[in-house]
């Protein structure tokens, strides 16, 4: 059984069909990238999977259980977490606090025990702090724990966002344009981070525009155009796929007939 299954998912906004009958699966341990020209419906698809939007048709299954229609926090509780492009982190908190907050789903206490600061809560918090430090170090953010998130440079912000997603200990992580705005050096580091995530046993689905990174890192690539899935397969196949090339470049004869 596939870890993540998208079955005939569509999403309509009034007259616009942003996602049109898209189906694909993601197996455990894969790195799958979703690409497509601007407006192809990639971010809408992400929002549908993570529960920020409801599909108008179709089903989404995680480990064989339906998650479409569930709210984001419930989906996170089942093991699927996403990162964001804009609000990547909690800006006013330190990097450490950010990652500690992300341990939320792993907390055992209730609000009351938290208020009373019982020994159980306190030792759990200490464990989470240690765990957070370890994740930060793994992502190259050691030494920046007490830095206010909004003071961090762009590349580190994205790494912090990923650190927070990992702190949840998810099965699948959805990365929203993890390589955006990076130079080649930062991209290389980010590629290593994403590979490290997979090595840690977390399946990765990402949306991205940086073709170089996508080709380097993906096991499989899903291509969307105008909300429809037009191709799917390993990087070599996608690079030579006619429909994909057309989608990105436009068709010469189409222009001639206008």
């Amino acid at each position, binding site marked *: 059984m596939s870890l993540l299954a998208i079955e005939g998912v569509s999403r309509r906004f009034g007259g616009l069909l942003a996602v049109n009958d898209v189906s694909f699966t993601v197996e455990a341990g894969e790195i799958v990238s979703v690409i497509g020209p601007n407006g192809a419906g990639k971010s809408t698809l992400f929002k549908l999977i*993570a529960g*920020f939007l409801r599909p108008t048709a179709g089903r989404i299954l995680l480990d064989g259980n339906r998650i479409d229609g569930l*709210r*984001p*926090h419930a989906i*996170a*509780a089942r093991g699927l*977490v*996403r*990162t*964001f492009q804009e*609000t*990547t*982190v*909690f*800006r*006013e*908190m330190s990097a450490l*606090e950010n990652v*500690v*907050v*992300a341990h*939320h*789903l792993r*907390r055992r*206490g209730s*609000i009351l025990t*938290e*208020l*009373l*600061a019982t020994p159980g*809560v306190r030792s759990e*918090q200490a464990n989470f702090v240690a765990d957070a430090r370890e994740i930060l170090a793994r992502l190259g953010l050691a030494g920046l724990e007490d830095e206010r998130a909004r003071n961090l440079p762009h590349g580190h912000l994205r790494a912090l966002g990923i650190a*927070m*997603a990992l*702190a*949840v200990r998810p099965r699948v992580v959805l990365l929203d344009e993890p390589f955006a705005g990076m130079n080649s050096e930062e991209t290389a580091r980010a590629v290593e981070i994403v590979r490290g995530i997979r090595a840690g046993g977390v399946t990765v689905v990402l949306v991205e525009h940086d073709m170089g990174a996508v080709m380097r890192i993906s096991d499989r690539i899903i291509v969307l155009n105008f909300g429809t899935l037009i191709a799917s397969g390993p990087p070599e196949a996608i690079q030579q796929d006619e429909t994909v090339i057309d989608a990105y470049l436009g068709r010469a004869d189409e222009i001639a007939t206008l």
Partner: protein
Amino acid sequence: MRRVGASAGFALFAAVMLLVVPLLLAGQGYWLTVLTTAALLAFGSLGVWLTFSIGRINIAQGAFALIGGYVVAILGTRYDVSFWLSLPLAVLVAMAVATLVGWPILRLRGVYFAMITLSLTEVASLAFLNGGSFTAGASGITSIPRPTLLSSSLSIYLASALLLLIGIVVAWRFAASPAGAVFRSLRQGEDLAASLGINVAHYRLLAFVVSSGMGGAAGAMFAAFQQNIFPTSYTVNDSVNFMLYCFLGGLQSVAGPVVGAFLLVIAFQLLGAIQRFQALLYGVFMIAAMLFLPNGLMSLPQILAARRERDGAGQPR
């Protein structure tokens, strides 16, 4: 180091409130009443502070104070219920209303939430005005019996001071606990929080309900001490004042609303000599605060420290 400083500060404050003030002002009914008022308003403001921490501008605290006051008033005058029972009931009723109303409206943010909570204060006022014989309408409810054990200004003051201290501890514990970190995360990114598994709706409601419970308690105490309540006892102005105290003191820590409330209440009384200009100066003061101390009075030490550092550093790098 900072936590030790804060605990020491709290201990000092508690000592002043519970020991020094009674010693100095034992016979001064007027000033004891002023400090009682300040303490209870500070308590209500701590609630509003909690809603600020989840990123909501809450202009409804007056409504809950009104609800709390009327519960005590009606139970006390008509059913002979002891204050010590009607106080927790007032808190429960306020929290129940907050749950009912808060659930749908907490989806809203910014000015929209502000406007709808402002409307709630009006609704409460108008509802009690038009409540027929149940709420006694415009004439309000008077001759609310004083609570047993609390007959003197001093005992009333001590009860209020104690309530405030409890409120500070509760708010402080919230802020320092993981739940408090969740609250702060909501203010900075609700979607991000949800994607990390945080049940945003539940936590928002928790903050609002606790806040409203505190408002209800403050209103209940006031009603018992002033021994009356009217539909106009809490208006939009009062709801705004709660917000003001938080802002003036600063939103970063629980000390803010307390400092803000005490400062403004006491200053207001001191300005009483300049009766005519009292409220006018109030408005001027607020504007000045926004212009020069946007992060509140509690940010003053930081600002001064930063300035000293800048001056001490000498040449720019």
